[in-house]
């Protein structure tokens, strides 16, 4: 019961065979291939050239299109990822629609992976036959353009977002920098020193924070979150919710008296629980903006209905207990997500004693402890106030571990070295580093390792197995005992130490999935945001106009994070500077004659491009939102949705061509 199908019209197909130097021609017998191709149905002409992507190669294609009045063009060369655009443009310049072109990957798919020349020739024939068969069914598609709003939304005020915001603001764009905490600064603001140069983190970060606060082109929206995103590249609409701070920032002078007077004490999140804060509080001394918010969950007034001590002392009358969340809608053309990372709680590894023994610290706790503006004012101290005599730093806490995080968290080796150095510098303690592999790959990193080796730190090649306080003899009493094997000496070690520092794995933010869904991008393995291509488009995403920067993409150190912030800024700059974007023409389309309105497709679209047309009782696709991913086309039981340029007929014709010697 097949549907009647019309036989495709006669075509004039031009086939161009690229040698790619000896990359292809060294394996595939091009003259033989040309001879074979010439006889295929619909093929008007065949030509070959050493480098088809070169200017003469492109000219050859353009001239042939005109001379032979070609209706379809096939280039057998490298991967479409490399040069599909090149050849599409060449076709267009010769007056042929870019979608009347097919690229056959004769290099990655054939010459590079086939040793036997006879087989390589056969495979090249098969691939070209498939392309020719498909060419009959190709249709010209119309490419639409839309304008780009120059405004930019940056989500996340860590170092990546700060850097991108500054770069774009300098270029004259209006930047909305949305940060959910009351101050920008992110994780970097918690750090003490930075490796390998041992610069003070605050010294390099705070000037940038101040610049953000002062920049006329930056709208700094702290204590705010994005509720909803709609639209598409160049034309996003974003609803931002300003969370109620209970403090009128216009009036607040940042004098700090309210914090001083507030009677409530809570463990400080910023200090990783090592110090306290008040119910009305700023994150840290150099916060930008340096204005407090009230933590309504813990504020006595909100709990019991009275107190208002802060209000009493606030001279500018900035306290507003009645303040409510407000939602503001903005229009932007591009978006940068720089939402950073979350530090994994090692509580899931009970054998390491996190949460059980007070002197087992996370890496960020140690950063705070070592930070001169931290809870101990920079002193390395045990819970009882003593200085430790020995410290063990355990690498790979929950990283490189199939039970927790399979990936390497990438920065731990280096900050563990930094910690060892700081401990050595600030105390007399002996330091043990338990490591599996020492990974020091950046500029100046190996040198830093070398420096630490000279600083008399003990390196133990082995993963620490457990931490316990169960003493077996007098000398262990009151200590934490780290068990592990030094695999190099093949000795089981039982090390009594005073302090254990973990190098907790770096995870995506806990709400990364939700943010990804909101912005219609994907998460990769491990849950980090997925870039469009790790090498060719590292800050772009599958959602055009949405870019990513920093540790939300994968664990990375500060130099890499800043670089990515700038990369994202430059990508946005290029997009807004052009002022227009082409909408991908290879979108999905609903055949109204076939759609039964079953609504299967509706919930499947990852880009929310499909809606139900209640009047016609069928599905409708918004071209601007559709990315042509084909999910709906595959799921549609009526096959009423087809993906332009990848229709069933096109795909089947190509398969038929590849598999059937006679087409």
């Amino acid at each position, binding site marked *: 019961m097949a549907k009647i199908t019309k036989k495709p019209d006669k075509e004039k197909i031009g086939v161009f065979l690229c040698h790619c130097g000896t990359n292809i021609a060294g394996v595939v017998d091009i003259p033989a291939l040309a001879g074979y191709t010439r006889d295929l149905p619909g093929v008007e002409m065949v030509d070959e050239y050493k480098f088809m992507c070169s200017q003469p190669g492109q000219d050859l294609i353009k001239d042939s299109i005109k001379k032979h009045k070609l209706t379809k063009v096939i280039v057998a060369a490298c991967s479409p990822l490399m040069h599909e655009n090149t050849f599409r443009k060449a076709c267009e310049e010769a007056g042929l629609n870019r979608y009347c072109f097919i690229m056959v990957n004769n290099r990655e798919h054939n010459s590079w992976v086939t040793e036997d020349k006879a087989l390589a020739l056969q495979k090249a024939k098969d691939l070209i036959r498939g392309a020719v068969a498909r060419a009959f069914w190709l249709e010209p598609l119309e490419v639409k353009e839309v304008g780009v709003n120059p405004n930019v939304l940056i989500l996340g005020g860590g170092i990546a977002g700060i850097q991108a915001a500054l770069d774009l603001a300098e270029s004259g764009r209006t930047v909305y920098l949305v940060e959910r905490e009351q101050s920008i600064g992110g994780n970097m603001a918690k750090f003490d020193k930075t490796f390998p140069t041992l610069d003070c983190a605050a010294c390099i970060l705070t000037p940038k924070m101040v610049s953000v606060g002062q920049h006329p082109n930056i709208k700094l929206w702290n204590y705010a979150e994005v509720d909803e995103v709609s639209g598409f590249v160049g034309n996003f609409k974003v609803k931002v919710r300003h969370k109620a701070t209970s403090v009128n920032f216009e009036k607040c002078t940042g004098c700090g008296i309210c914090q001083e007077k507030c009677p409530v004490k809570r463990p400080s999140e910023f200090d990783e629980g090592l110090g306290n804060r008040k119910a009305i509080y700023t994150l840290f001394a150099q916060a930008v903006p340096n204005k407090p918010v009230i933590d309504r969950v813990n504020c006595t007034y909100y709990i019991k209905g009275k107190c208002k001590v802060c209000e009493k002392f606030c001279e500018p009358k900035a306290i507003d207990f009645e303040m409510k969340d407000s939602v503001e809608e903005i229009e932007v053309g591009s978006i940068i997500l720089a939402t950073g990372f979350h530090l994994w709680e090692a509580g899931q590894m*009970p054998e390491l004693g996190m949460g059980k023994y007070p002197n087992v610290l996370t890496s960020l706790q140690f950063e705070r402890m070592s930070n001169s503006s931290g809870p101990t004012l920079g002193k390395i101290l045990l819970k009882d106030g003593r200085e430790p005599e020995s410290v063990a730093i355990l690498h790979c806490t929950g990283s490189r571990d199939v039970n927790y995080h399979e990936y390497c968290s990438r920065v731990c080796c280096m900050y563990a070295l930094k910690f060892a150095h700081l401990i050595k510098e600030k105390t007399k303690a002996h330091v043990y580093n338990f490591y599996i592999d020492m990974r020091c790959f950046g500029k100046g990193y190996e040198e830093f390792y070398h420096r630490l080796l000279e600083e008399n730190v003990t390196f133990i090649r082995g993963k620490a197995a457990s931490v316990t306080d169960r003493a077996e003899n007098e000398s262990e009493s009151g200590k934490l005992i780290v068990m592990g*094997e030094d*695999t190099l000496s093949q000795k089981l070690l039982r090390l009594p130490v005073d302090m254990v520092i973990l190098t907790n794995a770096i995870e995506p933010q806990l709400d990364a999935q939700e943010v990804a869904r909101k912005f219609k991008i994907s998460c990769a393995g491990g849950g980090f945001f997925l870039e469009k291509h790790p090498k060719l488009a590292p800050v772009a995403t599958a959602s055009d106009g949405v870019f990513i920067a920093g540790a939300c993409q994968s664990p990375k150190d500060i130099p890499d994070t800043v670089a990515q912030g700038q990369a994202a800024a430059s990508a946005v700059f290029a997009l807004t500077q052009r002022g227009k974007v082409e909408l991908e023409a290879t979108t999905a389309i609903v055949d109204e004659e076939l759609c039964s309105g079953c609504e299967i497709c509706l919930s499947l679209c990852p880009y929310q491009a499909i809606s139900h047309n209640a009047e016609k009782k069928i599905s409708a696709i918004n071209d601007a939102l559709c990315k042509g991913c084909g999910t709906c086309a595959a799921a549609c039981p009526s096959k009423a949705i087809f993906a332009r340029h990848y229709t069933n007929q096109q795909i089947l014709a190509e398969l038929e061509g590849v598999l059937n010697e006679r087409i």
Partner: protein
Amino acid sequence: MQAVTPYLEVTDAIMEAGGEKLKTCLQCGACTGSCPWAPVNGFSVRSMIRLSQFGLEGIEKMMWECSTCKQCEVRCPQGLPIIDVVKAARTVFSQGGLLPGPLRNVVGSLVSKGCPWGGEKEVRYDWMAGRPVPDFGPDKENLYFTCCTYAYDPRNRKVGEATVEVLNKAGLSWGVVKTGEVCCGEAVNKMGETELFGKLKDTNHKLFVDHKATSIITGSPHCYHTFTKEYPGGYKVRHISQVLADAVDSGKLKLSKSLLKKITFHDPCYLGRHNGIYDEPRAVLKAIPDAEFVEMPRNREDSLCCGGGGGKIWMEVPAGERLSDFRVQEAIDTGAQILVVDCPYCLTNFEDSRKVLNAEDKIQVMDLVELVKTVI
């Protein structure tokens, strides 16, 4: 230092025998650091794996140090099934009768008598004599499978006897197939004797199928493990501690007598780490009126192996290296008067250690079922 040449055929053989993940080991040593044997006899699992990666001499001795307690596996960052590697090494190296002496007797007994303890087939069911043990049949819901140790070992027989009383008291529909049972084969499987294991497995599985058993109760965690993880299945398997927890929870079994004692519980490796059953025995113990329950420092996932798994129950372990001695001491240190277990190997080892440590007046070792019997 003597230069050696890797003998990769051995590596291949081990990989083929079930250790196929061998090469993914990072050599981080977390296993050795976790191993209860390492501190007492210097055994390094990592080293054994390293030698296996090269097929070098030394594996054949080291591999018998492991009691398959799984402590290393749960911490291995590569998720390497280390016990499988040990088992594979044993399969490869114990071919041709290279088993350590005591284990040869075990294998011989299993081949000829279907039990590892040298007991005759005919006496397997003697412990039931004069006791109200129902025959399993179509009218019975649960088949109780007798562990060889409960059947033949005099101390452990008392557990079997207590089980009869407790199951009847709980009003459970149960019975025993009083002919044809053989050892579940767990230990011999870990000893690398896979062929012999296969035969034992087939015999018992056929017994279950022939009797249309849909629900099986085991006294030993080792039987439980093997039936659930290694047998073809088709029947529900429960460990006695789960059955008791259910019966107590639903009120079918009333723990009514007071027990004015301090008790602690030892998690057998094959109940806990291997099968994740931690809460059920505790729930039963905590339901005993007036008893004070205390935990040992190493409990649940961190429980210390008694040293009896993986065939080691039959092997000689020199004094000072016996894990059960440390464990009983740990129990004594908590001030507990009763150390409760629910595995025949643990019971056997701990009873020995009590004597060795001269602690017979300090602490009692009881199976969970035995203790329950005294309070119903």
